[in-house]
Each structure stands twice: as structure tokens, then as C-alpha cells.
């Protein structure tokens, strides 16, 4: 009886949470903003201006224009002091000439981009009340030659750092909610294992190395549990375990393969892929197991779910992005619970896959493959705008947007 009650509550909560998907959201309306640039050190000013314009454009909240027309006007100064620099940034409303932001930022010149990302996030926060994404990072799979290594870059594709040097296959990175760890699937042992890398210490350890398949690991929103796919007890099934690999618990028992788990924003349920009833489709299950509920029906191939977690204060509902296969091509879609259907959001004839939400719940990073080259793109879901990130040598795929 208690179990049934718990189930009803869970069902009600997820139903309500997902019913909001079709709500139209303010924020798609862009505010006009003029970046007038910076006085002082001319060389640095050019770089700061360029990064700030790019950040504000990528944020999706602004259309950049001239000071004569814009609602907001940015002014500032840059001073170089040896290896350090100091940037003062002021943002005024054109109508009242009142400063809504006035702040001094300092840092080393090597970290100039990071410093400007801080400015950009402050501007976004001040004007929209929403959390910016300019200081976030993206992990991805970097293929050069025969090997696939993990790398991390800033959200705008700059400042790429390679994480692994295994000359093996490292795939499907996922961040811990605190941004400290990345868990991923490594073939370093010759078999697929789930490893964890601590970004602070560089320490790696194996979290799951059972016989057969160990892959698809994803942290719960509180960072305490990990959902993953294992095949040690039969065909690929879903499990959860503690963040240190202990406390294994099996969730599914099917004849098909379960893969790609992602936690709901409230941590109560897990969406995943199963081909138990034919082609791969998205299902939902309570985090402690039970009867799965099928979400998607068409298109005939839906995989790679990623559930957005909009921050507190966001107007956006949680959204479930996925990769469909239509007409022999991969396209990114968003599942609409009310309609029970998948709305395509990136369907342009190229292969688009691996959607991963930004922490703002508005932007996606994904892989676009054209002429056999895979590159990472950002999508502003509200503005429906794609931007290609600066390309790395070789191919980039399976991105995961950090917290």
C-alpha cells in the first residue's frame, strides 16, 4: 500500500513537471545591447570586446546594436599591469543613463577570456535575472587518429584541455553536479569500464568493471548515486550505484537492451533507452525500480535522452532532448509530454546527435556530422539558433555540458 502511494505521488509529480513543456516562455524576446568597447590598453581592449560580444550573442538574451538605439549601453576601460590586467565594465540604460552594473574585474592576461566570461555572466544576471553560461565548460570526445580521448573546453569552444592520454577509446563523459569529477566509459583495459577522473587531483579510478558491458554512467542531481548500464547479469540492464561504485541496485529486467540513463531534475525518476519492444524508444522508471513507462512512440528510433535542469528562478520547464533517426539521418528533438510526441529542433539534413543541456536549460550542445567530419554546435532552443564552435583537429563528439 505504501509502495502504491509512493508511486502515485511520483507519477503525479512527474506528470505535472512534464506537462509544462509546451508553456511558452518569456526570454525569447531579445534585449538590444550596445557594446561600445573599452578604452585603455588597445590590444587588450580589442580582445576583451571580441570575447564579450561573442558571449552576449551566445547568451541568447541580446541583439547587439548601436549605442544610439540600444536599450543598454556598455562602456569600460582596460589596464595592463605586467602579466595582470584590470577591466572596468559599466552598463547603463540608454533611457535614464543609470548604471545597472559597474564593476572592476582583475586577473592574469592568460585568463583574459575567463575574466570576460565573468563580466558576461554578470551582465546576463543583472539584466535578465537568469544565470549565465559563459563560465561553464563542456567535456567531449576528441578523436585524432585511431584513438578517442576526453577533453574539456570552455563553453565557447576555446581553451581546450586534453584529459586522457590513453591511446584507447574513451567515450560518453558525464559531469558530477559539483563539476569536480567526470565519469566516462574507457576501453583502456580492453573492455568497456566506467572510470571516474577527479579534475582537481587528476586521480582516476574504476567505478564499474564487471564482466561484459559497463557504460552510460550518469550522476543523480544530488551527486550521490550513479545510473548506468551493466550486462553482468544478462543482457544490458539499468542499475544504480553509489558515487563510489558500491551499493549496486538493479532497476530493469527485460529481454531488450537498456541504455543511456538520465535522471529527472528532481532525482526521482530515470529516463532511458530500451529496445525491448522493437526499435529503441525512451522509457521512464522510478529510481528505485518498478514498472517502466514508455514515453516515445514515434519516430521509430529515439535515443540519447538528456533532461534539462533549469535553475531556480528560470521560466523554462524541464525538457527532455533526444536523438531520433528519421530518413536515415539523426536529428535532435524535444519530447513533448502533453502531445506525447517528439518535436524536432535540429533537423537540417546533416547528422545531429548527442544533445546535452546547458545548466541554464536553454542551450544545447550537440554533434553535427557533415562530409564525415564531426563538430560541436550550440543551439539556443528558444531562438532556434545554431552556432558552430571553433573546430579542433580531428573530430569532436559526445559532448557533455558541465554544471
Amino acid at each position: 500500500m505504501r509502495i502504491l502511494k509512493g508511486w502515485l505521488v511520483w507519477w503525479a509529480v512527474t506528470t505535472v513537471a512534464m506537462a509544462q513543456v509546451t508553456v511558452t516562455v518569456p526570454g525569447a524576446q531579445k534585449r538590444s545591447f550596445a557594446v561600445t568597447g573599452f578604452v585603455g590598453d588597445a590590444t587588450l581592449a580589442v580582445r576583451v570586446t571580441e570575447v564579450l560580444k561573442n558571449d552576449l550573442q551566445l547568451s541568447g538574451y541580446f541583439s547587439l546594436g548601436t549605442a544610439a538605439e540600444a536599450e543598454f549601453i556598455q562602456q569600460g576601460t582596460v589596464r595592463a599591469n605586467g602579466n595582470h590586467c584590470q577591466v572596468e565594465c559599466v552598463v547603463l540604460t540608454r533611457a535614464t543613463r543609470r548604471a545597472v552594473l559597474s564593476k572592476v574585474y582583475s586577473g592574469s592576461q592568460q585568463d583574459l577570456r575567463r575574466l570576460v566570461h565573468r563580466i558576461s555572466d554578470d551582465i546576463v544576471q543583472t539584466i535578465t535575472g537568469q544565470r549565465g553560461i559563459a563560465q561553464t565548460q563542456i567535456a567531449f570526445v576528441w578523436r585524432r587518429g585511431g584513438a578517442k580521448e576526453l577533453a574539456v573546453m570552455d563553453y565557447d569552444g576555446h581553451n581546450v584541455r586534453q584529459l586522457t592520454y590513453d591511446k584507447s577509446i574513451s567515450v560518453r563523459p558525464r559531469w558530477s553536479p559539483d563539476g569536480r569529477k567526470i565519469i566516462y566509459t574507457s576501453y583502456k583495459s580492453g573492455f568497456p569500464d566506467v572510470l571516474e577522473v577527479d579534475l582537481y587531483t587528476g586521480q582516476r579510478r574504476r567505478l564499474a568493471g564487471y564482466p561484459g558491458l559497463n557504460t552510460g554512467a550518469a550522476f543523480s542531481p544530488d551527486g550521490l548515486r550513479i545510473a548506468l548500464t551493466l550486462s553482468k547479469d544478462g543482457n544490458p540492464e539499468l542499475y544504480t550505484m553509489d558515487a563510489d561504485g558500491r551499493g549496486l541496485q538493479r532497476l530493469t529486467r527485460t529481454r531488450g537492451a537498456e541504455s543511456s540513463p538520465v535522471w529527472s531534475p528532481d532525482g526521482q525518476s530515470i529516463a532511458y533507452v530500451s529496445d525491448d519492444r522493437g526499435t529503441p524508444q525512451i522509457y521512464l522508471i522510478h529510481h528505485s525500480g518498478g514498472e517502466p513507462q514508455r514515453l516515445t512512440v514515434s519516430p521509430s528510433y529515439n535515443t540519447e535522452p538528456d533532461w534539462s535542469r533549469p535553475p531556480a528562478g528560470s521560466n523554462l520547464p524541464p525538457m527532455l532532448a533526444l536523438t531520433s533517426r528519421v530518413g536515415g539521418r539523426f536529428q535532435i528533438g524535444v519530447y513533448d509530454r502533453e502531445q506525447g510526441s517528439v518535436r524536432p529542433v535540429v533537423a537540417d539534413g546533416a547528422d545531429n546527435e548527442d544533445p546535452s543541456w546547458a545548466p541554464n536549460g536553454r542551450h544545447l550542445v550537440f554533434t553535427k556530422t557533415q562530409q564525415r567530419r564531426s563538430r560541436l554546435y550550440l543551439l539556443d532552443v528558444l531562438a532556434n539558433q545554431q552556432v558552430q564552435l571553433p573546430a579542433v583537429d580531428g573530430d569532436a563528439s559526445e559532448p557533455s555540458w558541465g554544471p
Partner: protein
Amino acid sequence: MKSKELARITMMVVAVLVVGSVTGCKNGRWIWQKAPTTAGGSTTSETSVPPLGGTDIVAGARPMAMGDWQRGEFQPVYFDYDSARIKPSELVKLQAVAAALRGNTKRLIIEGHCDERGTAEYNRALGERRAQAARDELVQLGVDPSRITTASFGKERPADFGHDEAAWAKNRRCEFVLAN
């Protein structure tokens, strides 16, 4: 058990051979590196992992000695698109594998592979199901399941780098690797 002793001895030999060095895979396409003791690959922390399986598991334990792997002894088993069903045409290949495992204690690694037309993680699961389908067939043919380990590579290692049906058909496969 004999195979356990053998595995232990092989592990010791290999451990001596690979300290600080690189082992090459038989097919020459991939070079596998042992865990470096620096640059984050702390071997001490890698030993503090949960116990790997137990006696009640279905899957066989993994052979550790990659240097002794024999590749290419057997015909790959091919599959239909998005399917893990063993086709009647492929049964004779599995019978050959089962016959070769009789009268010795060799271990078998079954690698499951997919064509490029599935998404990456789904293909990892599909490749595992293919390897398991081949394993189940071998068990039917009398092979002890504890001698078999599965390894899915999804679409990471195509046999044919083409992008047409002829290439895809060669890539939807299981490969068999013998390990001492």
C-alpha cells in the same frame, strides 16, 4: 581450478612484461597502454574498486593477459541491421568456434560490433547483445559460459571503413579472440 591457475601465472608474466611499457594488439591497429602510475592513472586507487562480480554471475570473468590474445582464427558472425539474432547461415561459424574450444582450457572473448547507422551508446548496448547472442549459441553447443567474456565496441572499430550497405554488412558482426 586449472584455468584460474593458468590465468594467475599469465597475469604475473604479463605484469613483468608491461611495467612501464606499451603492449601492442595483434591486429596492429590499436596500441593499448597500461595504466600509467603518474598523470592521474593511480594504480593504487584502481585496486580499491568494488569486487568484480561473484560466483552467481552469468558473464565469465575477463582474461587479463592481452598480449596472448589470438585474433583472426575464426570467421566473424554477421547480423542484420539493428538485430542481435543469430542467422541460420552463421551457425556453422559458431560450431567451428565451439569445436576449437573442445579439449583445451582456452578462454574466448567475443567482441560485438555495429555499423555506423546507430547512435553511439545505443550501439554499445546492441553490440553487447550481439556478443551475448553468440555466447548463448556457444553455450548451447556445450561451451562452459565461464570461459567466455563479451566486449562490445559499438561502432568504434569498423571492419570496413566504407559508408554503404556492403561496408555496413561487414561491420555488423561478432569477432572471436582466443586467450590462454
